């Protein structure tokens, strides 16, 4: 233990410098936290016999990836996930923009009660209601379709909430100015409100993309063929222990499924983190 005076002097000179102990702890925790992902890379790029043998010069290979690609229709899963995610986000933008605009600017009777009703969906998620949603989806002929996976998420309370909050902060004067120029409500929405809400769309879009790229339970329930399965469900079926696929191949398949999102995250870390924060009010 240093004397109090020495400590005080040190802390005043280096205002917020961490003592070595905390730096070490922070780094140790970081290594523990990233280790599983690094390990997945190790397993995927090395022959199966190096799964628990960590030799620096172990031969690198891409065989695990070609094996995974050949053993399951990952190309099709990619297409499905891509269609699903773009479809959901596009539809959410439209539906939530309209509803958010209505809640922000229109004198609808019982608006507050309606809005509370919408907020309930923040707690009652489609995946909690899998049993009944499955019945409804099959009644509408949506089972085993990409639309069937996506539709329950389109009217997202979270999106409506975020856009309503954003639209409310936009000054009415801008709206009046557009009206003087002869704009109708739709033109005002598209020319005034939507452009000014761009950061909200970005944040909401990123959160929604990551959520639906990763979503599993409802897609598992509502799909039953390669034609509509997204990556997560395909990966889940591929790597189920009873299939007996080897670990190196599973690691490669796992990396294949997370690669696009992981790369996007590493490139746009700040935007991702900001989006999750902004979306945090949920």
């Amino acid at each position, binding site marked *: 233990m240093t004397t109090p005076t020495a400590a005080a002097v040190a802390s005043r000179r280096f205002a917020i410098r961490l003592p070595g102990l905390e730096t070490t702890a922070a780094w140790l925790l970081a290594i523990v936290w*990233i280790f599983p992902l690094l390990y997945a890379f190790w397993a995927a790029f090395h022959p199966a016999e190096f799964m628990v043998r960590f030799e620096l010069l172990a031969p690198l290979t891409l065989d695990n990836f070609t094996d995974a690609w050949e053993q399951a229709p990952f190309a099709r899963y990619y297409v499905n996930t891509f269609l699903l995610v773009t479809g959901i986000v596009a539809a959410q933008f*439209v539906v939530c923009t*309209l509803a958010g605009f209505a809640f922000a600017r229109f*004198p609808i009777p019982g608006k507050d009660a309606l809005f509370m009703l919408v907020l309930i969906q923040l*707690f009652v998620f489609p995946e909690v209601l899998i049993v009944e949603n499955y019945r409804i989806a099959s009644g509408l002929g949506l089972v085993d379709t990409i639309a069937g996976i996506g539709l329950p998420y389109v009217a997202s309370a979270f999106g409506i909430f975020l856009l309503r909050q954003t639209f409310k902060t936009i000054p009415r004067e801008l709206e009046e100015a557009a009206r003087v120029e002869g704009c109708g409500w739709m033109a005002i929405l598209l020319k005034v409100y939507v452009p000014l809400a761009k950061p909200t769309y970005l944040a909401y879009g990123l959160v929604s993309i990551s959520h639906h790229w990763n979503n599993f339970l409802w897609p598992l329930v509502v799909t039953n063929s390669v034609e509509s399965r997204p990556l997560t469900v395909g990966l889940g079926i591929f790597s189920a222990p009873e299939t007996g696929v080897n*670990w190196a191949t599973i690691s490669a*398949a796992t990396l294949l499924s997370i690669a696009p999102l992981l790369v996007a995250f590493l490139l746009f870390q700040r935007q*991702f983190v900001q989006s999750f924060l902004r979306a945090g009010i949920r």
Partner: protein
Amino acid sequence: MARLTSDRRMQVYGALLLLPAAVLLGTFAYLPTVATLINSLFLPGFRGAAPEFVGLENYALLLEDRTFWTVARNNLFYALGTIPTSIALALGMALFVNARLPGRGLVRMAYFTPTILPMIAAANIWMFFYAPQIGLFNHLLGALGIEGPNWLGDPGVALGAVIVMTIWKEAGFFMIFYLAALQSIPPDLEEAADLEGTSRWSFFWRVTFPLLMPTTLFVLINALINAVRVVDHLFILTKGGPNNATNLLLYYVYENAFSFFDRTYAATITVVILLVLAVVATIKFRVLDRRTHYQ
């Protein structure tokens, strides 16, 4: 008069704007919620017969179902096991990353990365850590001369193993909210405390921690929701086993509906989940948002 009609037109226009969302929410949120409540009062009809109204019989069955109690207790332990630890870790991570730390960006990335992986992918990776003979954990323990347990096969250990993986997946997500909150605390507070010679320990407990309370509540709500909502990893790690030792409520719903084809019993368990979520929602709207106005 003209004013009135224009108000009326605004109302109609607004209602039309709401229509798509209302139809979709009605179809995939409200209708299924109500149908779940109604179905929990019926027994399925066999061979095309109409379902039979049985009142609260399903709930009586539920109370006598030992598996249900096991599953409910598991979910409680799962919540108690994951939530406090991931919140504490998230706060610790945020404090680390908020201070001047060499390689801060890398450390923050390491903490946050598990958040953007799908639960299924995370479970795949951890599955190999936990595998009984060839798994990494037991391999490393073996090198130390210790015979590791069958992490996912031993009913006494399996839930703990699932909990550890969940903490790893969640903590980094909660960290970002603490980090944002820490950055909004004015630095002069710490300078003042420094001048008075307050120790960092007591500064944390007497100033920082209380200021972070809203964040802690917010994170707590999210963690509670996730504890009943996310069961994806069970499909890979344990399938609820061994002998239901890791089964959670929503997974039990899935089993009843899609493996045992007992839709009304699944509805009854869903009602329990809805009750839990209703409690969480009440906490959020009553306690957390007391000062937030939705106008």
